[in-house]
């Protein structure tokens, strides 16, 4: 206990609405090492987003605790940056201002104004969005918005990056592009990442480990599958790799077995 960088220990979440109680998560235990990329996969409504929000601190735990870098998570904070499913950029700010809002807040007093500006641009450069820095979110495509959302999260220099179905609303080609970008950035920055997804290929391609959740209510972790593919991974090359095929089959088998049950 407490050895891992991010430790989810016996977490349960119960929502109380009037007299109706619904136990969404039950006894979740998960250890994530620094620099590890972990995906959480499960059917819709199984509580995987709730789990991510608990780690983010946006939803309080009912039982158990989340410990990040030896500190208990009690409230949201920039060391656990979230990339939301629907990008959640502020529409009245430009791309640059959306990122600099975060940078200015997190690094005020640490970096000078010029350093903060450079840091904002550096992060937009990481996601290849410098060409549209002065556009508004409404003027760029869905994929670009999600890139900016990722840049904003990375710019906070989080201890753990939380991705909540980041590519769910994108078309397949854009999604593949963004997955490649995320892999590149992950190789360069060695972030600790927790990603929610319902896409089996995405999970296998990106993750070091795949956490499979049982169906709710009272969802818990059904199985954890390590993906031992070497990095960097090339989506074309790994598609034929027996490790990839085997991992993919394992996840699908888990999901279908659960659905039948």
């Amino acid at each position, binding site marked *: 206990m407490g050895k891992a960088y991010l430790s989810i220990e016996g977490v349960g979440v119960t929502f109380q609405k009037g007299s109706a109680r619904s136990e969404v998560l039950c006894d979740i235990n998960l250890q994530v090492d620094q620099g590890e990329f972990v995906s959480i996969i499960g059917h819709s409504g199984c509580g995987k987003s709730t789990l991510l929000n608990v780690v983010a601190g946006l939803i309080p735990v009912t039982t158990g605790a989340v410990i990040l870098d030896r500190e208990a998570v009690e409230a*949201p904070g920039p060391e656990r940056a979230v990339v939301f499913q*629907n990008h*959640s950029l*502020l*529409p*009245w700010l430009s791309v640059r201002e959306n990122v600099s809002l975060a940078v200015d807040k997190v690094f005020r007093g640490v970096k000078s104004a010029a350093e903060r500006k450079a840091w904002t641009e550096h992060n937009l450069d990481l996601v290849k969005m410098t060409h549209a820095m002065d556009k*508004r979110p409404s003027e760029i495509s869905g994929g670009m918005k999600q890139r900016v959302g990722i840049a904003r999260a990375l710019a906070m220099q989080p201890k753990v990056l939380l991705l909540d179905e980041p590519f769910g609303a994108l078309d397949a080609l854009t999604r593949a592009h963004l997955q490649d970008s995320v892999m590149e950035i992950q190789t360069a920055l060695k972030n600790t990442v927790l990603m929610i997804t319902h896409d089996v290929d995405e999970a296998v391609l990106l993750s070091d480990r795949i956490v499979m959740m049982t169906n709710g209510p009272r969802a818990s972790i059904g199985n954890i599958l390590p993906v031992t593919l070497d990095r960097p991974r090339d989506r074309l090359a790994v598609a034929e790799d027996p490790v990839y095929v085997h991992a993919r089959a394992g996840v699908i088998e888990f999901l279908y077995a659960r659905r039948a049950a």
Partner: protein
Amino acid sequence: MTFPKPSFVEAQPVPAPLNETPSTVPSTAPTGELRASRLSELGRQGRGVAAAVIPPAVTLLVLLALWQGAAGDSYTGVPSPQRIWIESKDLITDPFFDRGGVDKGLFWHVLTSLSRVGVGFSLSAVCGVMLGVLIGANRWAHRGLDPIFQVLRTVPPLAWLPISLAAFQQAQPSALFVIFVTSIWPIIINTAVGVRNIPDDYRNVARVLRLSPAEYFFKILLPATTPYIFTGLRIGIGMSWLAIVASEMLLGGVGVGFFIWDQYNSGRISDIVVALAWVGLTGFFLDRIVALAGRIVSRGSALS
């Protein structure tokens, strides 16, 4: 879409002799091609303007003709457009005269009314937005105040006037209060709706960034609510313009409402029609100005 490319190469720069009058061909005369493209550009713009102007102009003419036909030449009742022109020519052509007392051009009456609306509406805009934010952000404020506001907002503007006169004893503050109390409700209610409709995502962004309450207010809440606030302000300014004319009729003094009532008592119905046109056009421009301000402030993301 075949536009000839403007080519300045062909243009012969003719050094103008000193004694030549400048009204002749400019020295960098556009070539025939260029002139044609400019003409077609002008033509396109002209068509756009025509499409916007001609239909309402035609409608107006038809309505005036119908009115003329219906009113005829009788000297009782509502005058025909022709008689209005004859009887109120001075009023129409010179809105700026000032012969002392209340005998002024319509511009001055409208200006007085506008200044009252300006003061009353500014007050209600400030108070309305503040109360709206309070109601939108605080559940208990909402539970406590919303039912009361929902009842008060249905009270007609003129019903406030007697109370207002009794409270203030004077015409000017009473008129201001009536404007205030008429226009504040839509501002409060729309602001509150805007605050309560701030997407959870924005709140979550603010929480992850640990924005302070002040930062949240200025960086998230206000910009996110701006389109709603301006919807409220647009309705509010329209209602305050409705209220001013009615309350001035009763209060007397200067102002377009008083003017209308005064002309009615003098039997000058033609002047009233002219005043109505002023009231309508002023209200229209007020609405446009607030809508434009909303677009500028919200950087184009207002609903409008």
